[in-house]
């Protein structure tokens, strides 16, 4: 199985461990992620607030490059996922955009291939049974909450990978790895996103609410699919003993017996003692 792959800027720096763990667990599942050449920033959380045409063009260039791979495009960052998917949808729905986009990016684009989040590929193409077959060290007894945040599930008519109010896709994956995925009230709350850099007061209050909801049900860790969420949750937690925040791909790697140390040592909240308690060194 082969996909064109768009890592996105954060996966090169702040959340490089997400990128690396994603590529490695995919390899274990015989999924080849082919990074598309010379991709650019999708504009993420800023461009749509400034200029529509530029937002379409920055995303369009990546879509057009990816199309040359001749496969669907796999994405891990939910913000990139939404931007790429939304632009493709608008390109298909809007004749005026179809007319002008190729000129803006100086490349042909046909919107032939889908944009898919890795969770969707694991659930609906690979299948969680096969994901579970590769488990060597089940995450038995590890109490976690699956945190979806915004753009995996909203807007539902664009992202469409699960129920927008009570998604289950990541919970089901974590259960397949043997973990105890707890039901909780914080799964689709917003972490404040890029307000981190401008209004920490707002972002901090949102993060505190999410962490309180996680602790309320006895979670030992939070699991996310987003680099910015992971960073906000790690750095904005109030109190003495912050909960570790994992990428779902890192927990897959641990359960598959891959060497997770290079990923986990990059975390700002050290998960070592929690993992030791559950027999992972």
């Amino acid at each position: 199985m082969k996909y064109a792959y768009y890592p996105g800027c954060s996966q090169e720096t702040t959340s490089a461990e997400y990128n690396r763990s994603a590529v490695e667990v995919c390899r274990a599942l015989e999924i080849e992620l082919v990074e598309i050449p010379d991709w650019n920033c999708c504009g993420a959380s800023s461009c749509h607030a400034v200029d529509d045409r530029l937002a379409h063009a920055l995303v369009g260039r990546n879509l057009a490059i990816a199309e040359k791979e001749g496969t669907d495009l796999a994405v891990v960052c939910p913000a990139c996922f939404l931007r790429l998917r939304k632009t493709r949808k608008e390109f298909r729905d809007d004749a005026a955009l179809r007319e002008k986009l190729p000129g803006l990016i100086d490349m042909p684009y046909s919107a032939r291939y889908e944009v898919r989040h890795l969770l969707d590929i694991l659930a609906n193409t690979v299948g969680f049974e096969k994901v579970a077959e590769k488990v060597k060290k089940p995450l038995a007894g590890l109490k976690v909450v699956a945190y979806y945040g915004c753009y995996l599930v909203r807007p539902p008519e664009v992202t469409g990978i699960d129920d927008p109010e009570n998604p289950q896709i990541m919970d089901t994956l974590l259960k397949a790895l043997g973990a105890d995925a707890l039901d909780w009230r914080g799964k689709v709350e917003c972490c404040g996103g890029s307000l981190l850099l401008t209004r920490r007061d707002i972002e901090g209050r949102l993060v505190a609410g999410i962490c309180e909801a996680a602790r309320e049900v006895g979670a030992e860790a939070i699991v996310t699919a987003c680099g910015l969420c992971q960073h906000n949750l790690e750095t904005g937690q109030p109190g003495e003993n912050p909960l570790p925040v994992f990428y779902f791909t890192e927990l897959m790697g641990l359960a598959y017996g891959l060497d997770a140390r290079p990923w986990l040592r990059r975390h700002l909240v050290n998960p070592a003692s929690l993992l030791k308690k559950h027999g992972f060194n």
Partner: protein
Amino acid sequence: MIPAESAVKEADGLAFGRRVREDSGVDFNRCYQCLTCTLSCPVSFAMDYQPNQLMRMIQTGAAAEVLRSRTIWVCASCETCAARCPQGIDIPRVMDTLRQIALREKIAGREAAIPAFHLTFLKSIRRWGREYELGMVIGLKIKTRDFFNDIGLGIRMLMKGKMGLLPHRIKGAGEIQAIFRKSREVGED
């Protein structure tokens, strides 16, 4: 095309409403004040006007007050309101349109740091083709004159390799600059 300066005059409230309607493609007149948006909004506590109030203000043409509000910038674009609106109003899309108008008209609103962040972010893309966090953070700190907040976190991030010291310039940086030129002159001060 409605003249730019008229968009912010209270007297031209109808013209403002038309412009928001045309630019966004969203029919905000469908709002009947059920408050689902406001009750769902995670950042409503930090807004000067609640989302439902803002919809009403656009309907009545309170252009200057809308464009100067904190609300249009503080909105986290989390999409919760849109997912729940019983009238199917794409409120985040309206917020984007209002931000774009405010930037184009160079309206100094109550919230300065957030628009400064967006422009700094785009400048980074224009220059390198990708996000350059350290350059962006420094640029933002100069713009907002906030030099000492978060220095400890910044250092920890550098030590962990979570923030690159140097930018990565993509090969197609020239293509990106052409895209900026062709799209619109934005990301410039």
